[in-house]
C-alpha cells in the first residue's frame, strides 16, 4: 500500500549519513547510530534484523556503566564505527567507549567547564538530549548556552561557541542538527520569557552564520516576502501583529526538541514551545509562531512555511516534539508527510512540502478542543476550557501540561509496519493562572496546575499509531506516565522504557511484551540499536529518572538531605519502584 520499502529506507539512511559528511565505514550506516533520531527523517528505525520478534525473548543485559550523574537521562548514545558516545546531563560530560575491547573501556572523556548558574534557569531538570556526529566531530550543546565540537577520535575540543544567554533565562538542552556545513541549534526557556530562536553555525569554525527568531518582525524571523508561505495565514509581520505591543519580545517559543531534515526539499523542520507567560490574558492574539512547526532552509535559515498547532496557547502545549518524516499513502495518494504527536493531545499528519494539514486526530483524552478543522487548520475550542487570570481555576483540562506525550519522548516509525510507536501520558489538570511579572532571569509563568489521573486509572501507555488514518492500532497500558522515546527495527521489534524502570521489547505488530528487565532507575531516554565490532546486534538505553520535577514531585530524589518532598497524589507509589541514578545499559541476545 505504501511506497517506502525497508531497502529504500536503508539507502536513505546511508545517503543521509553521507550528506551529513559522516564517514561511511564498511559496516554501513544502518549498523551505526550517527544522529539523535537515527536518520534525518528521525524515524528511530533500524534496518538491523538479528534481533527479531521470535528471539527477542532472550534479550538480556551484557554491559552497564554509571555516568556518575543523577539528573534525568534523556537523549540517546551515538555509535560511530567501534565507539559509543554518551553525553550526561549537566555538567555535560562526553564519554567515548571503545566497543572493540572487553568491558568497553573509555578511550577518553571530555569534561567541559559548564556554569552551575544554568541549573537554576532550567525549568525541567538539567537534561541533555544528545549529540550529532558529522565531519569527524561529535557536536553537542552545553546547558549554559554553548555548542562544542569535539574531535571524535581524540576527544580534543575543536571549537566552542556561545549561542545562548543564561542571564536571560536561556539554557540549551536540545541535540543539534547538522546539514552540510551548518550546525543548527536552539534554546530552552519558555518558562523564562525568552525570545525564542534557532541559529545556524558554521560546521568548520562554530561561528554563528544566521539567527532566525520564532516570532517578532519578519526580518528577525528570516521570513522573506514571497519566500515565506504559511498555508493558513497571510500578511507581513505575523510574529508581531498576533501579539500585544512588545509581548513577543518575552513570548517564549523555545526550541528544545528534535530537528528533522528532508534533503530533497532542502528543508529542516522543528517545533517551537509554549507562549509565555502561562497567563494567556497577558498576550491576546494567536501569538505566532509559538506552539508551531517551522520549516527553514539550513544554509541561510530562511523561513519557508509555518503551521501553528495551538493558537494562543493557554495550556503550556509546547510543540517541541519530533517532526517525523515519512512517505505515506493517504486516501490512495502517496504523500511526503510530516507526523507529529503534540502535547495538546492531537496527532498531526501534514504535507511537509507546504505545511498543509491532512489528518489530525486525538491520541489521548482531549477536551480543550473538540477537533481540528482541516479546512482552516485551527482547533475547534471548548470555551469552558479557556484559561486566564480572570477565569480563576479552570477544572479538568485534558491533557495536562505535561502533554499527551512529552516532547522529550520521541516516537519511532517503521516502514515495514507503516506504524508510528509512541509513549503517551494519561493525565488531566486544573489550571489556575495569575498575572506574571517579567523579571529577567527568573521564571515568567503565573501558574498552579495540579494534575489528576485521566480516565481508566492508568497513567501512561506505549502505542502504535496509523498516521495515514489517524487511528490507534494497539496500546500497552502502563502504571505510570510513559516518558521514554521509542525504537523500532526491521526485526519488527519495538523498544521502550517505563518510568518505574522497566526496559521492554515488544512485538511491533501486536504490542506483545517479548522481554523486560529492571534497569535500576526510571527510563526517560531513547533506546538505540547498533551492530558491534563483533558483528552482533546490540540495543542501548539510558536509565535515570528525572526531566520534570513538577510531574515527579521529587520524592524519587535522595541526594539532598535539605530537600525532602511528599509524593504527588497521582503518582504516590513511584518512589517504591525507583530513585535517581544515571546508567547506560547494553542488551543482546
Amino acid at each position, binding site marked *: 500500500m505504501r511506497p517506502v520499502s525497508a531497502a529504500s529506507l536503508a539507502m536513505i539512511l546511508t545517503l543521509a549519513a553521507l550528506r551529513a559528511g559522516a564517514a561511511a565505514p564498511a559496516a554501513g550506516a544502518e549498523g551505526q547510530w550517527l544522529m539523535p533520531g537515527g536518520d534525518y527523517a528521525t524515524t528511530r528505525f533500524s534496518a538491523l534484523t538479528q534481533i527479531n520478534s521470535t528471539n527477542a525473548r532472550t534479550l538480556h543485559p551484557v554491559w552497564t556503566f554509571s555516568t556518575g550523574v543523577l539528573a534525568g537521562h534523556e537523549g540517546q548514545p551515538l555509535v560511530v564505527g567501534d565507539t559509543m558516545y554518551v553525553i550526561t546531563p549537566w555538567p555535560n560530560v562526553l564519554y567515548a567507549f571503545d566497543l572493540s575491547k572487553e568491558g568497553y573501556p573509555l578511550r577518553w572523556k571530555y569534561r567541559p567547564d559548564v556554569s*552551575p*548558574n*544554568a*541549573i*537554576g*534557569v*532550567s*525549568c*525541567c*531538570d538539567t537534561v541533555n538530549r544528545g549529540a550529532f556526529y558529522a565531519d569527524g566531530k561529535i557536536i553537542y550543546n552545553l546547558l549554559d548556552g554553548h555548542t562544542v565540537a569535539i574531535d571524535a577520535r581524540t576527544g580534543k575540543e575543536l571549537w566552542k561557541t556561545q549561542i545562548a544567554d543564561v542571564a536571560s533565562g536561556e539554557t540549551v538542552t536540545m541535540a543539534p542538527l547538522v546539514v552540510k556545513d551548518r550546525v543548527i541549534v536552539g534554546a530552552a526557556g519558555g*518558562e523564562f520569557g525568552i525570545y525564542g530562536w534557532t541559529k545556524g553555525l558554521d560546521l568548520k569554525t562554530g561561528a554563528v552564520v544566521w539567527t532566525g527568531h520564532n516570532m517578532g518582525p519578519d526580518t528577525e524571523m528570516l521570513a522573506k516576502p514571497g519566500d515565506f508561505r504559511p498555508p493558513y495565514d497571510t500578511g507581513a509581520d505575523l510574529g508581531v501583529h498576533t501579539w500585544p505591543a*512588545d509581548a513577543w*519580545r*518575552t513570548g517564549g517559543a523555545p526550541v528544545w526538541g528534535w530537528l528533522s531534515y528532508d534533503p530533497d526539499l532542502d528543508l529542516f523542520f522543528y517545533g517551537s514551545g509554549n507562549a509565555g507567560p502561562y497567563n494567556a490574558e497577558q498576550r491576546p492574539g494567536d501569538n505566532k509562531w509559538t506552539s508551531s512547526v517551522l520549516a527553514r532552509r539550513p544554509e541561510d535559515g530562511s523561513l519557508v512555511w509555518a503551521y501553528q498547532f495551538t493558537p494562543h496557547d493557554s495550556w503550556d502545549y509546547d510543540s517541541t516534539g519530533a517532526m517525523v518524516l515519512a512517505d505515506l499513502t493517504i486516501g490512495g495518494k502517496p504523500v511526503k508527510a510530516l507526523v507529529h504527536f503534540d502535547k495538546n493531545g492531537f496527532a498531526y499528519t501534514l504535507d511537509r512540502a507546504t505545511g498543509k494539514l491532512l489528518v489530525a486526530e486525538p491520541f489521548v483524552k482531549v477536551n480543550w478542543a473538540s477537533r481540528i478543522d482541516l479546512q482552516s487548520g485551527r482547533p475547534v475550542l471548548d470555551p469552558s476550557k479557556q484559561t486566564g487570570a480572570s477565569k480563576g481555576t479552570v477544572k479538568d483540562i485534558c491533557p495536562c501540561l505535561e502533554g499527551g506525550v512529552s516532547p522529550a519522548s520521541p516516537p519511532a516509525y517503521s516502514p515495514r509496519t507503516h506504524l508510528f510507536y509512541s509513549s503517551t501520558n494519561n493525565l488531566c489538570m486544573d489550571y489556575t493562572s*495569575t*498575572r*506574571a*511579572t*517579567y*523579571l*529577567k*532571569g*527568573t*521564571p*515568567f*509563568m*503565573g501558574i*498552579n496546575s495540579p494534575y489528576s489521573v485521566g480516565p481508566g486509572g492508568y497513567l501512561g501507555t506505549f502505542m502504535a499509531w496509523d498516521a495515514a488514518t489517524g487511528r490507534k492500532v494497539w496500546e500497552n497500558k502502563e502504571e505510570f506516565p510513559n516518558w521514554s522515546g521509542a525504537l523500532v527495527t526491521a526485526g519488527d521489534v519495538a523498544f521502550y522504557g517505563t518510568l518505574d524502570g522497566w526496559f521492554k521489547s515488544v512485538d511491533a505488530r501486536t504490542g506483545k511484551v517479548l522481554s523486560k528487565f529492571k534497569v535500576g532507575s526510571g527510563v526517560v531516554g531513547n533506546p538505540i540499536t547498533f551492530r558491534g565490532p563483533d558483528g552482533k546486534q546490540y540495543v542501548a538505553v539510558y536509565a535515570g529518572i528525572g526531566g520534570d*520535577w*513538577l510531574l515527579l*514531585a*521529587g*520524592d524519587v530524589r535522595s541526594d*539532598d*538531605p*535539605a*530537600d*525532602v*518532598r*511528599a*509524593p504527588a497524589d497521582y503518582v504516590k*507509589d513511584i*518512589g*517504591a519502584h525507583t530513585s535517581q541514578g544515571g546508567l547506560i545499559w547494553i542488551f543482546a541476545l
Partner: protein
Amino acid sequence: MSPLPSQLRLPCLLLGLAVAGCSQHAAAPAAASAGAPPSVSYPSHVNADGRVPPGATLHNPHAGDKAVAANGAQLFMAMNCDGCHGPGAAGAVGPNLGDGRWRYGGSDSEVFMSIYYGRPKGMPAFGGAIGEDGVWTLATYLRSLPLPDNLPTQSFGK
C-alpha cells in the same frame, strides 16, 4: 528591556509593601543605594580550630508576623519564586523550602544571604530587586509554612 521597570513596580503597588527601594528599581540597584548588608557569621560551618570568623548576625525583624507572612506569600508568586520552588514552596526544579531543612543553613542570617545574594547552582540574587525588607518578608512567609508530618520516613504500600 523596556517593560522591566514598569512591570517591576506592579507587585510593590499590589502588595502595598514598604519594600526598601521598591520605587527606585528603574533608577539604580536598591541595595547599592541603601548600602549592602554586612557579611554574616555562619556558626553552623565547621570552623578551623573551632574559631568562628567575625561576622554579623542578622535577625528577621518580622519574625512570626502573620500579616507579613501573608504579604510574603504574595511576593513569593510576584517575584516568580514559585516558578522554581513550586506552588506553596513545596519544591520543583528548586528545593522544597517548607520542609524545615535548608541547603545553605537555616539561621535568619543564612536564609537572608541565600535570597539577597543568591547561591551557586542557580538561586538568583534577589536583593537588588526587592531590597532587605523584601527578603525578610519572603523569609517570614517561608518560616510560616507548616512542617509536614513524619518527614524523614516515606512508607509505601496500601
